[in-house]
């Protein structure tokens, strides 16, 4: 019986080795797909930009994009520049909607395809008007960066307003007043984001509560793009109230998590105690 079984195993093993061969489909569809890493290489834009035939100044674009907020949010090359990343031959075809890199003055409209509210306020602001009038005013990438050279598009935050950046065009005084007007609200947004991160780590599904925060911060930042300090100050209270509601929800959830922790700790102690009692009973000498 034993020998028969072992013989069968040996025959099966060797025959499987000989007959099975290399399962290409399996390899292609499953094993060699390191789940996201290689998917990027399927993107014709990236494949070409990282290749040796690319001009050196454009070679870093994929790398800089991977460090950007766009990459974090799955915004890929074709989402802004158009074209077809799945078809190398047609990737830069106008028929497939390829736009390429915009001219300096066209950048606001280029970004504004997605950031609609911000575009509207920007165009009405001093920054937007200056660009329109002189062709030299600041556009989106002046403050937020792009993926050229050593830049990458940063997540919007209050530190973007700084003396070094603003004084390239004008004095820092007005910008500083604006920064002060934004500070407390931005700080609160940052705290709420940190709290959401904490809740996620605790295994809480936060997407439903994150949506109002996202829309509030998007609207608040759109408002900032008017570069109108008095308007920002006037409407700050409205945004603070909305953030307060989100904060209360987060605090309620954190309170619920504390209750859960205490409750399960109580059950833990209960069973530990019962275990100790059982241990002592089992060690008690019997008649």
């Amino acid at each position, binding site marked *: 019986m034993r020998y028969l079984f072992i013989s069968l195993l040996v025959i*099966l093993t060797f025959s499987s080795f000989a007959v099975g061969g290399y399962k290409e489909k399996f390899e292609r569809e499953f094993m060699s797909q390191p789940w996201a890493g290689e998917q990027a290489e399927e993107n014709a834009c990236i494949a070409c930009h990282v290749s040796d035939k690319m001009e050196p100044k454009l070679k870093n674009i994929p790398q800089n994009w991977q460090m950007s907020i766009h990459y974090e949010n799955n915004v890929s090359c074709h989402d802004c520049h158009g074209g077809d990343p799945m078809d190398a031959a047609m990737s830069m075809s106008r028929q497939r909607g390829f736009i390429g890199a915009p001219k300096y003055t066209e950048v606001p409209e280029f970004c504004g395809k997605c950031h609609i509210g911000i575009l509207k306020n920007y165009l009405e602001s001093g920054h937007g008007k200056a660009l329109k009038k002189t062709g030299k005013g600041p556009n989106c990438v002046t403050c937020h960066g792009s993926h050229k050279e050593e830049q990458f598009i940063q997540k919007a935050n209050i530190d973007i307003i700084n003396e070094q950046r603003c004084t390239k065009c004008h004095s820092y005084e007005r910008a500083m007043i604006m920064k002060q007007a934004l500070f407390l609200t931005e700080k609160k947004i940052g705290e709420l984001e940190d709290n959401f991160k904490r809740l*996620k780590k605790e*295994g809480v599904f936060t997407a439903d509560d994150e949506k109002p925060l996202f829309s509030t911060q998007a609207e608040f930042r759109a408002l900032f793009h008017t570069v109108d300090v008095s308007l920002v100050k006037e409407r700050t209270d409205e945004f603070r109230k909305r953030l307060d509601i989100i904060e209360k929800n987060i605090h309620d959830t954190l309170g619920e998590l504390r209750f859960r922790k205490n409750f*399960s700790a109580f059950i833990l102690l209960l069973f530990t105690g019962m275990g100790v009692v059982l241990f002592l009973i089992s060690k008690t000498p019997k008649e």
Partner: protein
Amino acid sequence: MFNRIKKWLEVRIGLDDLTRTQLTEYRVPKNVNIFATLGFVALAGYAIQVISGIFLLIYYTPHPDHAFRSVQDIMTRVPYGWLFRQMHVMGSNIMIAVVMLHMVTVFLMGNYKRPRELTWVGGGLMLLVTLTFGLSGYLLPWTQLSYWATTVVTSMPTAFPYVGDFIASLLRGGDYISGITLGRFFALHIAILPPVFLSLIALHIFLIKRIGISATPFGTSDEEKRPLTEYKKKTYPDGSPYYPYFFQKQMLMVMIYVAAMFFLITFMPALFSPDEANTPANPLKTPFHIRPEWYFLAPYQMLKLIPNKFLGISIQIILVGIFLLWPFLDSQKEKNVFKRPVLRGVFIFLLALWVVLTFWGRY
């Protein structure tokens, strides 16, 4: 009143007799160790899974559009739903660990040897059913983690020529994980596997009761080396009574099991719930670093390492076959693994390999 009910039951089912023969007069060997309680602990673990699972079943909706939301509702809106879900999630992982430990200790003590071959085979099948429980239950929350981990695991059979695609297709109900897969896994998890598992438990307990509990081979002379040609129940007249002596030990271990479960729920509630476990399944977006649950990591990594995938999967099936039929392959009379250097060496090697592959698969 109480006495009348007791007498009524006594006449009909012989309660006193049942208690006497099954509990107080049923004796276990004097040197029985704590590892002999692991089967009972696994059974208690299964009971916890059944009870918590029934609570989850009340609120869970097995549909791709509603599964994720229904699980989130259990976690946030259903009173104490989080407790039952956490017990089910943590319990499933600890139970698998306990069943594995039970098999390892039975192996080390040589308790699979005749006449307990069928007890071992039944236990091995229960381990496989437990893993299938894990696999099928993993998909049900319909998260990114469960969706893609199931994609990985159900892709494994495709390495098999001729029948591999059919097996994968049978599991998924198509080429990809879909609502059909969810329906199949749900049916498997709550309707098909439980009766199979309960039947195996019944067989396992019947065999233990019929043959008698095995003595620990360490320290005492082993009486079971004699040739076995006819049925003889193993009894221990000089042993300790099952109740209360051994039952207390079993309950102590169950308390440790439950305490361990609540330790994880209290201090590591997100241990098995990374970010992807809180994101709804998106078939169009493959997350980074997706991998199966810890108990499938070793076979997964092994399959990745062996260049010929069919050979890889064949080796795994053969290993499972050897594992299940091991009592028929091992003809040595010595039960104590510490007196068998070759077997001990092979065991340590396989254990180390399993640990290395598991960690390798994780990182």
